[in-house]
């Protein structure tokens, strides 16, 4: 795979998007949305991280093997969080020694 040179315009566009999303995340956080506050904050953070990974880190233009490496990293992170929470969040469900 030949190296793909990302144009400066794309970098500037992503930069603007990241700034706008940063302002958005602070503005929304000032409102009391109950549990939705955390959902919105994390959604915006995931969108920002995805933009950085795809464009600043060139993954969008990288080989399939790179995609596998990147995907595996976040997949294992998801496993770690999901399995740990499925333990901690359900400990009260069974009437056995805590």
């Amino acid at each position, binding site marked *: 795979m030949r190296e793909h*040179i990302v144009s400066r315009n794309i970098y500037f566009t992503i930069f603007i998007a990241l700034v706008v999303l*940063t302002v958005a995340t*602070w503005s929304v*956080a000032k409102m009391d949305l109950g549990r939705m506050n955390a959902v919105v904050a*994390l959604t915006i953070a995931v969108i920002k*991280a995805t933009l950085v990974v795809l464009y600043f880190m060139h993954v969008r233009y990288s080989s399939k093997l790179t995609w596998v490496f990147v995907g595996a*990293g976040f997949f294992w992170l998801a496993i770690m*969080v999901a399995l*740990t929470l499925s333990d901690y969040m359900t400990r009260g469900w069974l009437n056995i020694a805590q």
Partner: protein
Amino acid sequence: MADTHTTTHAGLAHHFDDMEQQREAGTLGMWAFLVTEVMFFGGLFLAYILYRARAPVEFAVASNSLNVTMGFINTLVLICSSLTMALAVYFSQTGKRNLIVVFLLLTMGLGLTFLVIKGFEYHEKYVEHHIPVRFATYEFNWEGHASGHEAASIPVDDGKVEMFFWLYFAMTGVHALHMIIGLGILATLVLMARRGRFTPDYHSPVELSGLYWHFVDIVWIFLFPLLYLVGAHLH
């Protein structure tokens, strides 16, 4: 894509067929390292999730005492530094030696700005006795927290508030350490770039250091809302 007329490049290590293969291997190696970093920071984020689930009120109140303006400015500073780093990579790909140096230095300047602002924040926490340690002359104290604050009047368990600050200092501290290491890497790149070590054919050090720098930026993208904005609605 091996060319039929393989010309040997000065930057090509003997165990690679060609520059393409070498670059590809470097990218994969860097991502393998970044995956370990994802797991490393992931453990801290997991600890954060578990403690926040147990102490939602304390986390909101403690978060409310952080300096959101400084955190916000630092977020923008890091995003700017990611842009300048991306441009440094761009100029290394297009072979503009002077501009590589300029943008690496800009990135370093922004990284330093981040650390200085972080230093002011840490100092603020020190003065407020919000650093979760106990020495003969210093101890964590939440009781004395500015009573003028509306959020400070919400009854909380001080131990759980202290847990928030443990996570705050552990996560931002490790992040700041990564920034300091990043500055060292960038300084090395500046020296290499000035000696004309990078060409459109060979600039992997710039490219891979860029991946590291952007990764550290991503960590902060999550730290900012999770640490600073949890209690923003409390005023």
